[in-house]
């Protein structure tokens, strides 16, 4: 108890609080703007941390991390353009709800679920981190492959009822992902002698293009002068009612746990968790209509990743996702070596991290819920202004992901593909899912085979893998059954 009080004491120092606020605001802004991600936010504030004391430094970075994770939902819901890959799943139902005039409610649900997911992950981090870390180590390449394989079963759920077209979209994603050097031996695939293609297709730029460009084209192609605006822009803040929260609580809890689990497994991350969270919410909702449940699911899941990813980082010194890899580097600069030693020698610091993480989640919640009324006002702008601005932001975002103009061209190319896919009724979400999961799947598949020296039995030799394959079969069967039911009805 004393340790906890002490931790909150150190977390509530003025400089630490200031860093929390700064971090959270930077994170939310970076997350909300399509193309700018929390990873970029973290990079931006990294030099600032050099001259701070360790707790203030890590607080600033954690603030950006948590703020950015939740900030992505804003543009996903309001504009239909996910701010980060993790928000792609939120975009699916969230934006449809916004089109029905429920933008405020969808945002409220997103913010609330994200915060609950984040808080649950912090609690798990504090209470059972070492146990989870030990379990996460059981995930070798073969097990990660099984997990990702299961992730692909979500395609059925995110195809909005068009499973065949969804599968084709997924294949497009996998095809695009194979471009560039292969992750294991560095063999060049579909590079056409171009050095830029050697680097492969940047997932972020591709995703922005697929979601944003068709929206922009549509906005400029429709004459809105005579049309009365359907969107209800008066919504300021609308949290779900107690009754709705009760109905959502199961989904939120389950998704948060998924998020923590995925976060704790090194080599995975937010987007996978978000899609799995969406998928299980969709199965529960059991309808093609957009629902708050399907906003709550992915949001709770990917924010659950924040605490989850810190589990292997703090206990073992292994980053759980790309953002924690940067955090790890930042700690190193301050002479702190994350790992079991940190607990022994600097337990006060670790508790301090827990405390700040807890406060950051609440802080982000307050800033977001205060901000919703302004976010929704974005829709008041004349479309021509709004979408021109978005276009500029997308170009900046694509460029800054690798400081390479080629990524901007990638974005436009992806936009063209996305435009025609949407025009002919192909859902784009499976493409994004495949782009995000594909590299991990290939990587773990091939590494598993290297480890087993070519023996395919490695994929079914562990109970963990078998459980995931069983999940996959279960999900697919339940989809088939649902399809039959709807046909009869």
């Amino acid at each position, binding site marked *: 108890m004393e340790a906890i009080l002490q931790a909150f004491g150190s977390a509530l120092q003025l400089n630490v609080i200031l860093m929390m606020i700064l971090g959270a605001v930077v994170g939310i802004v970076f997350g909300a703007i399509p193309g700018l991600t929390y*990873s970029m936010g*973290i*990079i931006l504030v*990294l*030099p600032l941390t*050099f001259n701070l004391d360790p707790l203030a430094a890590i607080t600033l970075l954690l603030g950006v991390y948590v703020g950015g994770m939740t900030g992505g939902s804003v543009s996903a819901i309001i504009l239909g353009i996910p701010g980060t890959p993790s928000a792609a799943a939120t975009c699916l139902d969230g934006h449809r709800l916004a089109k029905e005039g429920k933008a405020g409610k969808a945002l409220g649900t997103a913010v609330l679920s994200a915060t609950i997911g984040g808080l649950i992950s912090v609690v798990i981090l504090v209470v059972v981190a070492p146990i989870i870390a030990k379990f*996460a*180590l*059981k*995930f*070798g*390449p073969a097990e990660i492959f099984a997990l990702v394989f299961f992730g692909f079963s979500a395609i059925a759920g995110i195809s909005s009822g068009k499973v065949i077209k969804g599968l084709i979209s997924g294949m497009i994603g996998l095809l695009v992902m194979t471009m*560039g*050097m292969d*992750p*294991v*031996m*560095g063999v*060049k695939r579909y590079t056409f002698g171009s*050095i*830029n293609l*050697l*680097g*492969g297709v*940047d997932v972020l730029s591709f995703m922005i293009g697929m979601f944003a460009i068709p929206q922009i084209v549509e906005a400029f192609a429709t004459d809105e002068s005579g049309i009365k605006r359907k969107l209800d822009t008066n919504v300021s803040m609308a949290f779900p009612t107690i009754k709705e929260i009760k109905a959502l609580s199961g989904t939120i809890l389950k998704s948060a746990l998924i998020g923590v689990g995925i976060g704790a497994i*090194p*080599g995975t991350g937010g987007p996978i968790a978000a899609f799995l969270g969406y998928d299980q919410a969709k199965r529960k909702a059991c309808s093609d209509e957009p629902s708050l449940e399907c906003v709550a699911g992915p949001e709770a899941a990917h924010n659950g990743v924040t605490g989850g990813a810190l589990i*292997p980082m703090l206990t*073992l*010194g*292994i*980053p759980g996702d*790309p953002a924690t*890899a*940067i*955090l*790890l*580097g*930042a700690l*190193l*600069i*301050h*002479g702190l*070596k*994350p*790992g*079991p*030693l*940190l607990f*022994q020698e600097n337990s006060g610091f670790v508790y301090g991290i827990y405390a700040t993480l807890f406060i950051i989640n609440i802080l982000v919640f307050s800033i977001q819920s205060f901000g919703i009324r302004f976010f929704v006002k974005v829709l008041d702008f004349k479309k021509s202004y709004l979408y021109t601005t978005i276009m500029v932001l997308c170009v900046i975002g694509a460029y800054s992901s*690798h*400081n*390479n103009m080629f990524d901007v061209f990638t974005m436009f190319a992806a936009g063209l593909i996305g435009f025609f896919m949407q025009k002919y009724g192909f859902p784009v979400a499976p493409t994004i899912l495949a782009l995000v999961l594909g590299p991990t799947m290939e*990587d773990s598949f091939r*590494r598993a085979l*290297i*480890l087993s*020296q070519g023996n395919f039995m490695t994929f079914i030799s562990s109970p963990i893998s078998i459980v995931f394959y069983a999940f996959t079969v279960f999900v697919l069967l339940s989809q088939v059954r649902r399809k039959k039911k709807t046909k009869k009805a």
Partner: protein
Amino acid sequence: MKSTTKKIIALLLVIAAVAAPLAAQAKKYPTKAVEVTCLFGPGSAADLIARKFSDLAQGYLGQPLPVVNRTGGGQAIGYNYVKNQRPDGYNIIWTSNGIFTAYYQGNIDFKHEAFTHIAQVSYEPVSIAVKADAPWKTINEFMDYIKANPGKVRIGNSGAGTFTHLTAAAIENETGSRVVHVPFGKGLAFASLLGGQIEATIQLPSEVEGQYKAKQVRILAVTGADRVESMPDVPTLKESGYPLELILWRGLAVPKGTPADIVQTLVETTKKVVESQAFKDFAKTVAIVPSFKTGAEFQAFLDQDDKTNAVLMKQTGTSNR
């Protein structure tokens, strides 16, 4: 009269036009920010050292040196970008042994000759780590085990053709036996080591120091000429009877054709930074060894390293040349 006035004005204008850039040139380099291209992502060892370096160099150069991460394509994108920039000293590449990896893999068509090398900044050996409860107490026992079990021992590295992979290959040569090389992404090799999926991993000291101090891993040897300061009880390969010395160097280079005086300014600045107390302190926290090398000495070292890499990459089958 009128036309004379006009002529004088015209003449003055011409002089002004010609003199303006001259005056600008007369101002000492650098007059604007100098971009440092880093080939690895934020938070990576290369990135952290580059950022610290540029932070300190700003104090001597008087201009900021923003670090820009140009990753991807097995470093090809970044190397290619800087090579094609104007040789005016405003684009620096943060380079390493990686340039040979990129060349022999066939990602780029040029080697170190395409750049004018400013200086070496630091080097670091790598460490051979096994799990704390592994049966091998010394590197000799481990080597004997590899010898007795050809093709059984799995050693993790940070990617095909990278320095850690080549180190494993060099060790393999010492045993005369074969090991299984397993390429991993950042941080993942370590998870697999603790998870028991591989027998050993070859990593930078900074990446394993924490786990080493916490006694999760045992470090059998380091590959440099000297022991690593933060791991005083870990022997070098040479001490253990293997005549190997492998280090990962980091340094700065600019496109070929950069004026000599600008190169000289950068050499002097680099020397000041590397020898500064601030950089030495920082080096300790990230377990690198500050080491300044320039001119003919650095060039000879690069040529030698080129040859070593060529041989090892051919052996590991990662060379496409």
